[in-house]
C-alpha cells in the first residue's frame, strides 16, 4: 500500500521545477557514509490483507469476564462517544494553534475543563495530561514548584503503578518521596500526619484507594495545610457521582485517569489524565489551557491561553515539557459526561456500588474468605483468601474469569489478598459464576 499520490509525470514536472534530475539528488546533502546500513522490513501488503492479519492477531487475545481494575475499568461506552469523536474534523485536526479555524476543538476542550472542574469540585482544569499516573507525577512536580520544597509524602494505598511513575519522575531531581505503608487497606492517618514535616510539598493520596476503600480526606487536608503542604488527591471519576468531591474535602490538586469516561480498555491506552486545582495555582498548571475571550466584534471564542508557561515559549523554564496531550480522549470524556449527564452520573455511581456491594457480600460469605476493607468501598474491594491469591486467579482465568488483582506482587505480606472490581457491566449471573468458581478453587 502507498498513500503517495504523485504519478511519474507529476514527479518529472516537480523535479523540473526544482531543477533536479532525480529524487535521489535531493538526498545529496546526506553524505553517503551516513546512509542506512540496513532497512530490512517486510514488503508492504494491501488493506485487505492487513485486515486479515490484524483479525488473526486480535483473535490471540482471549475474552475474559473482567473483575479486574487497577486503574482501568470495563465500563459501558455510550455509542455517541465513538460516533462523535470519530468525526474526522475532530480526530484529524491537530493542536488548535490557529483558533479561528479550530473553534470546534477549543470550545470542546473549554467544556471539558468545565466538566472536570464540576466533577472534582475544583476551580480550574487544564485541557488534559497523558494518563492518571503521569498526572500524579505532574501534580507532585507542581506542588514542588508552588511550595518551593523538596519532599513529598505518598500513601502506599495509592495505585502502585502511579507511585512507580512518580518515583521515576522524582528520581532525577533530588526530591525525596516518603511512602507511608498502608494499614489493612487504609491510609495510616497518624503515620501520614507524622510525616508532615516542614519541608513537605505535598501529601499524596488516592480515593477510593487501590484497595477500594473510600475515606473522608478533610482531616488530612487540614493537617497538610497546617504544615504548608498541599493535598494532592487521585480520584476515580466514576466514583464522583456519589462520593464527596475532592474540592469539598479541601484538596489542592486533583488528578485521575479518564479512561473510565468513555475510553476503551484497549490494553491500556490511550486514555487521558486530568488535573484540576484552585484558581490561585493556575500559572503552575502543566499543559495546555483553553481560555474564553472575544474577537473584535465581541463574538465569544476560545484560545490556548497562558502559553507563556509552556515549553515552546519558556523552553527549559516551562512548567512542564508536555506538548501533545490526549485531546481526543478528553473529548471522549466530555461526550461521555454530557451523555450520562448530571442525574446519570449519580445513578451510574450507585449502580456500580450496588453491584459491588452485592458481590462483596456474596464473595465475603464464602467459607474462608474475608473482606479486608474496614470501612466503605465503592466498586472495588479486597478479599483475603485462605490461600495464595495468585494461584486462585490463575485457576479462575482458565475458566474465562479475570477474578481480581492479586496483591502479593505489590504489597509485602498480602499474597493471599486480591482486589475485586465490579462495574455496571457485570451481571448478577457473572457475579454468581465468579462466586462459584472461587468457591470451587479454595
Amino acid at each position, binding site marked *: 500500500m502507498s498513500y*503517495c499520490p504523485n504519478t511519474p509525470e507529476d*514527479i518529472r514536472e516537480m523535479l523540473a521545477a*526544482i531543477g533536479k534530475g532525480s*529524487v535521489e539528488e535531493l538526498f545529496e546533502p*546526506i*553524505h553517503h557514509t*551516513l546512509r542506512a*546500513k540496513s*532497512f530490512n*522490513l517486510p*514488503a508492504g501488503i*494491501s488493506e485487505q490483507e*492487513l485486515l486479515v492479519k490484524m483479525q488473526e492477531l486480535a483473535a490471540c*487475545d*482471549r475474552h475474559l469476564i473482567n473483575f479486574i481494575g487497577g486503574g*482501568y475499568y470495563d465500563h459501558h461506552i455510550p455509542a455517541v462517544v465513538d460516533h*462523535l469523536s470519530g468525526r474526522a*474534523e475532530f480526530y*484529524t*485536526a491537530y*493542536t488548535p494553534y*490557529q483558533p479561528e*479555524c*479550530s473553534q470546534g476543538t477549543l*470550545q*470542546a476542550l*473549554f*467544556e471539558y*475543563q468545565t466538566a472536570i472542574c464540576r466533577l472534582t469540585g475544583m476551580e480550574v482544569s487544564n*485541557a488534559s495530561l497523558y*494518563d492518571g499516573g*503521569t498526572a500524579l507525577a505532574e501534580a507532585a512536580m507542581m506542588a514542588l514548584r508552588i511550595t518551593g520544597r523538596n519532599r513529598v509524602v505518598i500513601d502506599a494505598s495509592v495505585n502502585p503503578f502511579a507511585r512507580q511513575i512518580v518515583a*521515576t*519522575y522524582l528520581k*532525577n531531581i533530588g526530591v525525596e518521596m516518603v511512602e507511608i505503608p498502608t494499614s489493612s487497606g487504609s491510609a495510616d492517618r497518624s503515620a501520614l500526619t507524622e510525616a508532615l514535616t516542614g519541608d513537605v510539598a505535598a501529601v499524596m493520596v488516592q480515593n477510593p484507594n487501590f484497595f477500594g476503600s*473510600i475515606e473522608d480526606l478533610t482531616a488530612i487536608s487540614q493537617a497538610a495545610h497546617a504544615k504548608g503542604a498541599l493535598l494532592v488527591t487521585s480520584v476515580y471519576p466514576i466514583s464522583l457521582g*456519589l*462520593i464527596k*468531591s475532592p474540592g469539598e474535602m479541601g484538596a489542592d490538586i486533583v488528578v485521575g485517569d479518564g479512561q473510565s469516561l468513555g475510553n476503551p*480498555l484497549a*490494553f*491500556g*491506552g*490511550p486514555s487521558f489524565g486530568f488535573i484540576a486545582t484552585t484558581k490561585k495555582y*493556575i500559572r503552575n498548571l502543566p499543559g495546555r489551557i483553553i481560555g474564553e*475571550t472575544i474577537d473584535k466584534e465581541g463574538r465569544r*471564542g476560545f484560545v490556548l*491561553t497562558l502559553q507563556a508557561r509552556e515549553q515552546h515559549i519558556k*523552553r527549559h523554564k516551562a512548567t*512542564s*515539557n508536555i506538548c501533545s496531550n490526549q485531546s*481526543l480522549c478528553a473529548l471522549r470524556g*466530555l461526550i461521555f*459526561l454530557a451523555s450520562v*449527564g*448530571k442525574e*446519570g452520573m449519580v445513578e451510574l455511581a450507585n449502580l456500580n456500588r450496588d453491584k459491588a456491594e452485592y458481590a462483596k457480600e456474596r464473595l465475603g460469605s464464602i467459607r474462608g474468605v474475608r473482606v479486608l476493607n474496614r470501612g*466503605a468501598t465503592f466498586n472495588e474491594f479486597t478479599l483475603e483468601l485462605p490461600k495464595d491469591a495468585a*494461584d486462585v486467579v490463575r485457576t479462575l482465568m482458565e475458566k474465562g474469569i*479475570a477474578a481480581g488483582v492479586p496483591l502479593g506482587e505489590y504489597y509485602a505480606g498480602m499474597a493471599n489478598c486480591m482486589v475485586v472490581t465490579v462495574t455496571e457491566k457485570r451481571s448478577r449471573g457473572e457475579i454468581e459464576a465468579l462466586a462459584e468458581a472461587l468457591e470451587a478453587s479454595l
Partner: protein
Amino acid sequence: MKLIFEQSVPGRRGLKLPIADVPKAAPLPDNLVRFEPAQLPEVSELDLVRHFTGLSRRNFSVDGNFYPLGSCTMKYNAKVTENAAALFAGTHPMTALLPEGDTSAQGSLCLLLEVSRLLAEITGMDEVSCQPLAGAHGEMTGIMLIAAYHRAKGNKKKYVIVPDSSHGTNPASAAMVGYEVITIPSASYGDMDLDAYRAAMNGEVAAVMMTCPNTLGLFNPHISEICDIAHEHDALMYYDGANLNAILGKVRPGDVGFDVIHVNLHKTFGTPHGGGGPGSGPVGVKKALIPFLPGPRIVKHADGRCGLEKDNSQSIGRVANFFGNFGVIVKAYAYMTMLGREGLIQVSEQAVLNANYMLARLKGHFDVPFDQTCMHECVFSASRQVKQGVHAIDIAKYLIDRGYHPPTVYFPLNVKEAIMIEPTETESKETMDAFIEIMIEAARMAETNPDMLHEAPITMPVGRLDETKAAREQNVCFG
C-alpha cells in the same frame, strides 16, 4: 455556539442506564457522600449529537483541508488503521499483569513486540520501548535513560546541549530530568554552529539533543563530527524523531552515531493527531542503555510466546500506567505493515520532493533564510512582507479564509517571521499548486492591499481573538 452547559435543562436526560439486577445497597455514611450532584450537562442525545457535530464543523482538519503545519507531519491518516485499532479495543491491560495472564493477551503483547522490532530496524537502534505516551514524553524518558546510564557509570553530568533551532520540548524535557540546558546558536548553514558546540562541550555534558533534519528542514553536514565529539566526552547523542518522516530508509540515526531516539508515531507513522493528541513516543536505545528501559519490558520467550520481563532492577521504572498508547501503536503498526519497506522509503522520497517543490515555487515570493535543498519541510521568512506592514500571522490568517490551514509561523525561533511549510508525501501536486497560488496571491496582496490581510480571517465563525484578554481574565471554566 452555545456551550453544552448552556443547553442544559433540569431533568432532561441523555443516556439511560440499565435497571440494577441486584438489590440496592445500604447508603454510604453521610460524611462520604457528595452533597449535590456535579453540575454536568442535562441534554437529550439528539441535542448532544447536534452540539458536537456542530462543533466538529468549526474545525479545519486533514480530512477537510490541506494542513501544511510545519514540524507536525499532518499526513493522511489511513482509515483502515481505525478499523484495525477497533479490533483490539477490548483487552484489559491488567490481564497481562496477572499470573500467567500473558497467555490471555498474546495478540496485544506480540503486536507491541513486533512494533518495537520494526522501529528498532527503522531507526538503527538495538531496542525500543513503546511505553512513552507522546513525543515529549519519549524525550523525557530518553533523557531519564541517559541519566540512569551516567548514574550507573558513576559519571557526574550536569548539562544537556541543544541547538537554538530545537523544539521547545528538548530543553524542557532536559530540565524535567534535572539537567541544565546549554543552547548553541545556529551557523550560516542553518544548524548548530560546530565551533560553538565544540567550545561548549565538556565532561559534565550528559547529552546532546539534535533534530536531524532540524526544524529548518536541513540535514546537518557535520552530524558525524558532532557525535564523535560528544562520545569523546561520554556524552550521549539524543535524536529527536520529530522529523523522521524525511529519512526513512535513507538514514538511520543509530548508524549515524545517535544513542537514544524517540519516534512520534502520530507523525511519521500516520496516526491521527486527535486535535492535539493522543500521540505515542516510543523510545529506542543502543545496547548499553537497554537495561535502563522502562518496565515492564515485553520480551519473547524461548517458546515463541510474548510476555513481560520479570527482573528489571536497573530499569528507570514506569513512565506510564501500562504499555503505552496502545491504540495509537496498533494504528502505526497497521500503517507500517501496509506500506512495508518500499512504501516507507517512498514516504520519505515523496515528502522531500514535495517540500523542495514548495520551496522552488515559492522562493521568488518569500525570503528564504537558508537557501539549500531541504528535506521534508521548508522555512520561509515574511521579512520582505514586513516592510509593507504584513506579518507572518497576517498571511496565515488569510490562508484560513482561502480554506487552508496555515503553516507553522514564528517557529523555529532563530528565523524572523518564520513560515514553515511541511506538505507531507500524501499531498498531490494539484493540491500544492493550488496552495502555492494562494501564497503568491498573499505576497502580491502584501504589496497592493495589506489591509485585507490584516482583516483576515473573515469567513470563520470568529475573527482574530483577543489573546491578551484571555490570559488576563483566565476564564477557563464556565459559570
